[in-house]
């Protein structure tokens, strides 16, 4: 993962999930946004960025691009990402929500073959407070510090950051892997990155019902993570249902717990791994202070 402020960044598409304010915020943060790609709008200027029709035109003009932020319409995400991969862009952040899951399956097969890092979809991206902003995370909730945040949510990620900042706990890196059922990078990858990151001293994991990533993360934390980890799981009081994209009964037949996908299953796994769990976002700073000595 290249998160240096020098790395060159592209925006593909300008759908409702990104606004002029977001672009201005990234630029104000010092992110090296070089251009936008919006087919049919080549030659125009948008939010102060030169706009091209094709990714390859951007590369011709600006050289290798490190990261692309994809904000095209949901049905165009696969195409935009394949275009980025064909242009050898190795980090893709997908902000767009509502991408059909079979498009993601196709994209992930390709990304794995090409060793492309895909973050999202339905992710507000990554922020390294005080250094670089890649995506739509509102920077005002962040302040530089030592707590790493890895989350599956969008808005809830900044909710947690806001609580930390209000409590005087700054952040090292905050990433949302995306709240969709099928996303690129996993909790495991990011726990490893945060564990290796020199600035990070403690990690906050933010989860929600659906899938099995929190359970996998819990096992991984017990096995491989040396830094203290605090978790928060939203949706404990929500009724279980397919609304939260559980695979339901069919999941059980392939060797999974019948509770698979529920907040309860996640809480049980975290308990098993002895990861402290916050009851509410505002309780996170308190739990963190018990684990690490900051301020």
């Amino acid at each position, binding site marked *: 993962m290249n998160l240096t402020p020098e790395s060159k960044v592209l925006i593909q598409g300008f759908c409702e999930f990104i606004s002029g304010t977001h672009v201005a915020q990234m630029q104000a943060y010092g992110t090296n946004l070089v251009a936008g790609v919006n087919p049919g709008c080549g030659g125009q200027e948008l939010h102060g960025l030169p706009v091209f029709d094709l990714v390859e035109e951007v590369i011709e003009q600006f050289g290798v691009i490190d990261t692309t932020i994809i904000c095209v319409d949901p049905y165009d995400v696969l195409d935009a990402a394949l275009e980025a991969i064909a242009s050898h862009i190795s980090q893709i952040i997908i902000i767009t929500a509502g991408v059909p899951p079979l498009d993601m*399956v196709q994209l992930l097969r390709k990304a794995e073959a090409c060793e492309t890092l895909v973050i999202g979809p339905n992710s507000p991206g990554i922020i390294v407070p005080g250094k670089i902003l890649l995506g739509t995370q509102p920077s005002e909730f962040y302040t530089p510090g030592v707590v790493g945040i890895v989350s599956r949510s969008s808005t809830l990620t900044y909710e947690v950051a806001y609580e930390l900042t209000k409590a005087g706990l700054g952040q090292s890196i905050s990433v949302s892997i995306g709240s969709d059922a099928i996303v690129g990078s996993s909790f495991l990858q990011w726990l490893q990155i945060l564990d290796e990151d020199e600035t990070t001293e403690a990690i906050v994991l933010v989860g929600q019902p659906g899938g099995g990533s929190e359970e996998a993360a819990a096992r991984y934390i017990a096995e491989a993570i040396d830094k203290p980890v605090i978790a928060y799981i939203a949706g404990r009081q929500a009724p279980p249902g397919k609304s939260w994209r559980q695979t339901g009964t069919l999941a059980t037949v392939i060797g999974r717990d019948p509770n698979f996908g529920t907040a309860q299953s996640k809480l049980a796994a975290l308990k098993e791994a002895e990861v402290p769990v916050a009851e509410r976002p505002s309780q996170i700073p308190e739990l963190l202070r018990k684990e690490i000595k900051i301020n």
Partner: protein
Amino acid sequence: MDLLEYQVKEWFGKIGIPVLPSQRIDHPTDLKRLKIRFPIVLKSQVHGAERAKAGGVRFAETTIDAIAAAQNIFSLPIWGELPEVVLAESQYDANQEFYLAVVLDTAVCRPVLLGCKEADIDWESAGEKMHHVVVEQEFSPFYARRLALKMGLQGALMQSVSGVLEKMYHLFVQKDLDLVEINPLAVSANGQVMALNGKVRINERAIKRHPDLAEMAAKIISRHTSTEINGILGDWDGVKMHGKIGILGNGTGSVMATLDLVANAGGNPGVCLNLRHAFLTDTTPTTFRDRLETGLKILEADKSIQVILINFLGSIPQTEEVVEVIARVVQQNNSELESQVVRSNGSKIRQVQNFTPIVVRLAGSEFDAARKSLATLKTHSDALLVVENLDEAVAAAVRLAKPTANKK
């Protein structure tokens, strides 16, 4: 979105999965023009499970029997749903029955082929009997053969079952499905296979890119109430609970966290809607503002909702317009309220009072102006509360949802 059996079988037939001769019956008298041979089976076309147990499946040997049975089925609601169509189908002599499925497994991010040498399995104990193959790379027929062999099949039957799986997979990809299932796949004495019943679940996000599916969804939306729609189409936009506090938020996790906070503070969450992306029932593209308007309407129309809690943090698209929408709703409530006669009996007031207090939690620099402009609105004291702190907003919503308790 789940299809009805007759729709599933039309798809199966088109893609080459063997199905029995059958005929769609829209009215009992259609049976006079039956093109398939007796004896037949008549099946109620509803979404609910266990229709056979409920009396939705009947056998008939003659036209008279069939008409009587169809009349019966047409007037029998199953899980509250009356069939619009009955399927008349030939009967089949099955020697063995298998279960086959292709399902999107979100935990491994790949489609999975499932197969079992028994049909109508008990899911609780399916583990040992059910076999699966993960479709790691682009599908090719060898994945289907892998499953058929794992199921313990051999020779010609292995080939024909894997042939059916292959077609199921193509349907799965072609139509953006979450699930396609054949249960049971019957095998005759001479080894011929036949899909006796099938299930297809379409991924809601992909509906709009398939004109035929969009049309089906539009029909369901126009014919059914919103609760039924959720049952039929799936309800990925939110959670339906039965409490008094309706929640609108921007993002699944945020809505969930708010719901938890409300419950922990002693409140009862009601319908919770995520406004981050288009609702399933939206047949045309929507903006955030549209979804907020729709969400407010849904909550206001819901009689059990006593308070609306809106939680926005960071940034939302079209901030100014969104504030206008909230302001308009609040002012409308206000004017309606002023024209009402306030009676002494609290409970009566609630009945005539056709507005719902709104608690708006806004945090982030983008909302600074919004908070100010909403604060200047002249409203009834409870009609609108604007706060920045989430815990405070939740406490206020819970307090407002218990007016009688407060007044004591």
